[in-house]
């Protein structure tokens, strides 16, 4: 798995934390919604950046009051055909004005990247088979669109 951000491959400084892996004092971690709900206090006391991971059935409104606590939100695509996270992404950006990293995780394939980008994702855990450098070209295959989406202050 490679992480694509701003059209380049970067080293991932975040850790996805399983629900039963103990929380250490240090390191940037991404936790599940469930863990956030049950260990909220503990997580807020940590001095490290925090990320949250939503399953495709977990909508933006479940965390809309808590956005200030997150530096990263990861939205899952359990299979590429499950398009719910596209809606979640747009709502986070456009309705709740979330400005931090919005990361696509799960079955994140080359030919979906551009749709994701346009919905407001800015980081991609690329799961395709081809080299990620090649997948980046998907972002520039098209530059003309009809919809005014993803209007969330990207420059």
């Amino acid at each position, binding site marked *: 798995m490679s992480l694509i951000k701003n059209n380049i491959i970067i080293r991932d400084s975040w850790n996805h934390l399983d629900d039963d892996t103990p929380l250490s004092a240090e390191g940037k971690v991404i936790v599940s919604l469930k863990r956030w709900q049950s260990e909220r206090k503990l997580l807020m006391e940590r001095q490290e950046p925090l990320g949250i991971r939503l399953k495709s059935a977990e909508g933006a409104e479940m965390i809309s009051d808590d956005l200030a606590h997150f530096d990263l939100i990861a939205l899952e695509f359990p299979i590429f*055909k499950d398009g*719910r996270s596209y*809606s979640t992404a747009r709502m986070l950006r456009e309705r709740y004005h979330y400005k931090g990293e919005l990361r696509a995780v799960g079955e994140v394939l080359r*030919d979906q990247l551009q749709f*994701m980008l346009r919905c407001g994702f800015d980081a991609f855990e690329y799961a395709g088979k081809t080299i990620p450098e090649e997948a980046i070209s998907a972002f520039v295959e*098209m530059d003309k669109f009809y919809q005014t989406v993803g209007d969330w202050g990207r420059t």
Partner: protein
Amino acid sequence: MYVYNLVDQSLVNQRVQQFRDQVRRRLSGELNEEEFKPLRLMNGLYLQLHAYMLRVAIPYGTLSSKQMRALAHIAVRYDKGYGHFTTRQNLQFNWPKLKETPDILADLADVQMHAFQTSGNCIRNVTADQYAGVAVEEIADPRITAEVVRQWSTLHPEFSFLPRKFKIAVTGSKRDRAAVRVHDIGLIIKINEAGEMGYEVIVGGGLGRTPIVGVTIREFLPQQCLLSYLESILRIYNQIGRRDNIYKARIKIVIHELGAKEFTRRVEKEWKTIRDTAIDLPVGEYERIRAFFAPLPYQSLPKNDAGFSHLKFENQDFSHWVRGNTLPHRQSGYSIANISLKPIGGIPGDASAKQMEVVADLAEKFSFGEIRVAHEQNLVLPHVKQTDLYSIWNTLKEHNLATPNLGLISDIIACPGMDYCSLATARSIPLAQDISNRFSNLRRQNDIGELSVNISGCINACGHHHVGHIGLLGVDRKGEEYYQVTIGGSADENASIGEIIGPAIPYDEVVDAIERVVETYVDLRAKNESFIDAYRRVGKQPFKENLYVTN
């Protein structure tokens, strides 16, 4: 007609390039079939029984002569010289080669056409009344709305991976020719008391395994709010539509499970939060699009031309065709000429490249270069002078395009069925041919009057069997072709789903059975009572009794 600007054109061109690269990656093995399938489907390319099939989008059924010629050219150059017009106003090529598909799409792009979203779990090619802009009783032209919806839905980043496919239809007439009540969303253009334009919004209609007539969730939506309202509906559907069971994934099931009231409440709530964002088009954009559909430079002509009346008087065949296949036009002295793609015993909806060229020529000469495709799988020359009808008819006749059977029993809707389609459980076309042959006598057809026979080769209902006055659904009974008969369906403003009237019958007995149903109607009808009206009056019992009589 709408003409692409630079944005439209480069979007389509870029998409062709993108698909060319995807095909290259597939042929080189970089993509396997599982990965490639959704990509090809998003460009209208299926793999059917005998070969690939390319479904070309004909947005809201509007074509120019130039576009029709391009389709004819593609049929000859890349295919086997013909194409099939579908119930979604599209055109299918049955034999394209994968490696040539990018070239076909490039040829289409040259004439401002594409195959976007004619497949896949996305918003499909939008359909509309084939008489848009010309029907006498029309309130407003649905093509402006349809073009707005086409653009908005094309490569929509949020709604390209919906739970299931999503179909939108628009009409601007009281008389519904676009079957809006059996679409995922149906829009009926209305003018309110203040004289403003808007829409009645109908949601959750559909055919397939669970046929159902849609429900109105809003009586009047102001026109400028259209896109934000559509986004609200689609967003709710995208989030809560079922993804665990393909047969329960359409929006109609959401509405069934939530109830129309709760569904409406959620849509309205969502809409409140997005209606004032940038989603809706500025008025100027509607006006820009509207300008493309401005009235054409018609001549002012008398309502009735003496020469034309004389020709009708002189030539009975011509007069039959005029009576059967043409309709009055908004503009005095003009007509709407329907071109039947249902010759007696022919394949419903099929047109040869030569026929496409003939229609393109006629349109160029006599109809401002415009052609329409009707969801009944016929073509239309929308604006022809009465005085030109005779020469049009003569040309059509030469090419087997002048059967005067519009709306009659031989004007059968049939999906490709098992002759082409990999999902089929039985054939549709040969049955349509047999029925057409049985009722070949036009005098008899006219005596029977308006009667639609719709045939589908499987439960997917591409042949709209549920909404045929008589519907036939092909099923497989231990390897034999059987057909389930429904009666009383209708796709118009009084939409209804046909009732199954008993066990399915084998192929060889279907035509006789249909004949008995028709005879039952002829025997019991009141004066001037159509089949569907008679059925609604007497119910299914008399038909049922006679359907299963064996001799």
